[in-house]
């Protein structure tokens, strides 16, 4: 039941904000209250549950399951479950959600009630995605997340908002449809008769391999668009660029990576053999994303577009982990999903603050802001370090684990992915230089020392940086939670020919090499 509450709290907050639509302050207070409550509840569950699996079901180390009948005639039910992985994602959503509401706190949003309604509805749907273990229910939440995003970008976004919103809507809608078709196909072809995840694990092995491949590709397309994988990434960049300047939408709708979660939770465990057959292409796409994202980040002049390409580059590492599929890489991916979301959230908040203070977001017209805004400068420097994957910050732990896992499989892809380390040192210090260093370009009476971070902004950014540092120094706060889940998922996603073999020693595992 508590799982239902996790979804219901943001949605109730959304309804409260809508009810208070004639009172902007009330609406935002309701939104913040809901997200704080969500955060408290999720933290409490994290604290009290530990990580011992108690529900013996496949495909995760399940801590709690909730089922209610929904459409029994087609085998769909309201099925929620949580394991360490889902729980971390929910926590992340709550944290980013609270940051998201806070980032718009003083922005004098038009029609605040509707704005917060859409924002929280989207967050509730994201939590739903992380908990839904019924593919049809998953699709419902997936769609539920898309529609608010469309209105938020179209109505509150920049001058190109409607066009970017349409683009986003079409891409993500297509992604949802792919997933729906693949889900239905899987259920029908396998004869499972039910949409629930637990009974669908392993059924694809009985399918003819070409059918399994096409079904897998449907899921992959869905997750790839949302992730995004290079090639289907263009919507994300436009969406970030045109999202409202206060940054709330960047955070709540785009930074939280449901696609990354979907790849790990659904794609490979549902189609282990097809995913293994596709691994080389997947790795190529992953490495291409890392490098292309890096080069494009350097080439951008808009602060938000730059940050968007940084996340695309980081998501390449997650994709690589998915197509390497060992515990090392997957644990790395979990850390990366969290660190990338927090790092990107920080960068978008920074971009919003810079835009709000100077009226500019174009790198060519910025510079020298450190002199008047040293706090923002220092925290942005820390965020840039996180983007570069410097040790002591969480992203390093993620990236090095992914690379270590990849090296067990392929030297070439490890070396290519490590190229991302080099490119990140081109774009991240470049970003800092263009905004904070060099000659001040904004008049010092336009941006004065008093324009440095307010307490609210300081708290937001410092919290993001503090979590990044904490996870960089003691990543086991997260790794211990995710470990049982990741191990179970990894087992479920092993291709058939490896599954029957006893788990070999990790240490001298040279046979895995091609």
């Amino acid at each position, binding site marked *: 039941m508590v799982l239902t509450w996790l979804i219901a709290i943001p949605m109730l907050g959304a309804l409260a904000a809508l009810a208070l639509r004639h009172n902007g302050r009330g609406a935002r207070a309701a939104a913040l209250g809901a997200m704080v409550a969500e955060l408290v509840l999720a933290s409490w569950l994290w604290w009290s549950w530990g990580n011992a699996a108690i529900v013996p079901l496949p495909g995760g180390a399940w801590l709690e399951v909730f089922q209610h009948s929904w459409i029994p005639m087609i085998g769909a039910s309201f099925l929620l479950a949580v394991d360490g992985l889902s729980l971390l994602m929910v926590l992340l959503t709550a944290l980013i959600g609270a940051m998201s509401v806070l980032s718009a706190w003083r922005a004098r949003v038009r029609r605040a009630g509707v704005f917060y309604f859409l924002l929280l509805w989207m967050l509730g749907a994201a939590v739903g995605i992380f908990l839904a273990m019924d593919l049809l229910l998953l699709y419902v939440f997936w769609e539920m997340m898309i529609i608010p995003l469309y209105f938020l970008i179209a109505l509150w976004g920049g001058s190109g908002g409607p066009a970017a919103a349409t683009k986003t809507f079409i891409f993500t809608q297509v992604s949802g449809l792919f997933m729906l078709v693949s889900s239905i196909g899987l259920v029908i072809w396998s004869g499972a008769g039910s949409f629930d995840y637990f009974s669908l694990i392993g059924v694809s092995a009985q399918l003819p391999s070409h059918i399994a491949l096409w079904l897998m590709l449907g899921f992959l397309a869905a997750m790839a668009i949302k992730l995004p994988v290079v090639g289907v990434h263009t919507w994300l960049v436009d969406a970030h660029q045109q999202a409202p300047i206060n940054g709330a939408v960047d955070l709540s709708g785009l930074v939280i990576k449901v696609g990354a979660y979907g790849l790990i939770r659904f794609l490979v465990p549902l189609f282990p053999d097809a995913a293994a057959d596709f691994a080389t292409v997947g790795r190529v796409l992953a490495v291409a994303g890392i490098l292309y994202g890096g080069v494009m980040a350097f080439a951008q002049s808009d602060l938000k577009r730059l940050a968007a390409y940084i996340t695309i580059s980081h998501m390449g590492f997650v994709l690589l982990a998915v197509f390497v599929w060992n515990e090392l890489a997957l644990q790395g991916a979990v850390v990366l999903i969290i660190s990338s979301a927090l790092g990107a959230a920080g960068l978008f908040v920074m971009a919003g603050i810079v835009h709000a203070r100077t009226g500019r977001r174009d790198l060519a017209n910025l510079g020298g802001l450190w002199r008047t805004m040293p706090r923002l400068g220092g925290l942005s420097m820390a965020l840039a370090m996180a983007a570069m994957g410097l040790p002591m910050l969480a992203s390093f732990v993620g990236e090095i*684990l992914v690379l270590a896992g990849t*090296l067990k499989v392929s030297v070439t892809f490890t070396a290519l992915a490590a190229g991302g380390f080099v490119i990140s*040192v081109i774009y991240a210090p470049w970003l800092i230089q263009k905004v904070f260093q060099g000659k001040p370009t904004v008049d010092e009476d336009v941006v004065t020392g008093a324009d440095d971070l307010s307490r609210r902004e300081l708290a937001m950014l410092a919290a993001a940086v503090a979590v990044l540092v904490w996870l960089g120094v003691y990543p086991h706060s997260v790794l211990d939670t995710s470990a049982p889940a990741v191990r179970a998922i990894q087992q479920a996603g092993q291709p058939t020919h490896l599954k029957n073999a006893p788990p070999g020693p990790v240490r001298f595992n040279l046979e895995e090499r091609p």
Partner: protein
Amino acid sequence: MRMSLLWLIVALPLAAFLAIVLGGRALPRAAVSAIGTAATGGAAIAAAFTAYEFSQLVQPAEGITQQLWTWIDVAGFTAQVALYLDPLSLVMVLAVTVVSFLILLYSTRFMAGDEGYGRFFAYMNLFVAMMLLLVLADNLLLLYLAWEGVGLCSYLLISFWQHQAANVKAGRKAFLVTRIGDTALAVGILLLFTHLGTLNIREALDLAGGAAFAGSALPAAALLILAGAAGKSAQLPLSIWLPDAMAGPTPVSALIHAATMAAAGVYLIARMLPIFQLAPVVMALVAVVGAATMLYGAFSAMVQRDLKRVLAYSTISQLGYMFIALGVGAAGAAIFHFIAHALSKSLLFLAAGAVALALHHQTDIFKMGGLRRAMPLAFWSFLIGAASLSALPLLTSGFFSKELILLGALSSGGPGGVALYAAGLIGSILTAVYIFRALFIVFMGRRKQEPEPVRGAALALALAVLAVLVVAASVIQLPPGWLPWPGVVEFVSQVYRAPAEGAEHQALSVAAVLPSVAAILGLAAAYVLFVRKPLLAFGLAASPWGGPVRRFWLSGWQLDALYDRLFVQPFVAAARAVRREWIDVLYTGIAAVAKLLHRILSVSQSGRLRWYWAGFVIGTIVLLAIVVMTWS
């Protein structure tokens, strides 16, 4: 025995960094100075105490590990946050803490009045903390953390005066060039882990000789580690960042060159030496890279106009000597030369900084001159540093260390050993020429700019103590039998199971005397060229072949231009080419096609009954035709 204070050595500077950052503007300057210097001073005291405890150990070669917490432990990929103290790391810790403390002390005067005073001390302390963690790290991943931390701090400090784009560019350059090496190192570390199943340094070194590590993986790992070391220690081909690193304040240069960044690569190879010994080709490559870089730096240093650039190329060259020593297995000599160089180079930089303070940040040596009487402390400091750097016989630590390296190279045997020895001799001459050239031009001759008096007890104290240390440090390694305790070379060499081939002291053989002769020869040449017959030097520089050679050396052998053309310009061009996001053309194309179809179809919706009727008739005919055709 527990090394109770070991963790404090790293924790104190780190705490100072945090305190200054979190204190922000609320912290007065006096507090920043106090915290900023006391922390590293405390680390030096803790190091001394630890050294005392260490001297009580029965088996010092085994070392001592201090576990703090588990950093990462995933599927066998295990890295503790743990410190490891053995003779090698102990020597490094002592040298780093003492030199860093003196540099920080000096900085309280040098940076006084700078708007970023707190930021400066925060970064410097982080730098020191990272370097100390680097030499104390118990496993390769923690070492890599510190390795990157050092790189980050160099970037932050080189671009410290960040409102001038050129400084930031120099900082980014240092970061990027060293990061290329770092990335190679990361892959090398992962390669070792994949094959050995451990990240722990001692376990890895023990296992490396085993059967699990057959084939090309070990030389590959050694090569990648060498690339990492070459990046941080500014060896060819990754040397280009160091000359530009002088964009930072002078104490930063002193710290980078003497105690932290540049020494990291030397330490890394010394630490991983058994791996290199298993890959003789890579081991030889270390020496070759060292010799090439040594000559490259020495020739470049001879023609620089900027005092800090002379010192920068000198550092590159001296690090080359250390690489030669490592390449012939004389790790003890390399570490001894590191200490001697750290002391003399920091002294030289701090003296140069004092000159810069007196002359309004003038750094062009040809605009200086005759400062000997006006700035006696700076002069004597520079003189002592220069004497040690160029290994003038006796009295200076540099003399003993360089001699050990050259003899080590010679005794490594074969024509290769002789070649390294000969290169070292040439380098010795060049070293004396370039450093005394700078000394003579800056301190002798006609006074060109009137110096302002530089006051400050901290500054004078730091210079004086360093000058004494430069001379006194020769005590740690005298020929055997001169002193009751073992020299630093023997002390460090205990670390290696197979005793590293050190130089046997060949008492007063020709080979042992030649380096001294070379140094004196160089000094004499510099004296003739820059004091007695300066016209001769100008004539050489202006001669038809001298001019181009001078310009070639001045530009650091055109490496910057080469890399610019090979890497930077293509990358920027590529970024510019893809900036428009060509992938999106596919989707805008789909949208355009959809719009086109929409327009075509909307034409058909004309509302004219005749057209609809005609379409209906034609459609019917076509359908009927199809039906008839398929049936018949």
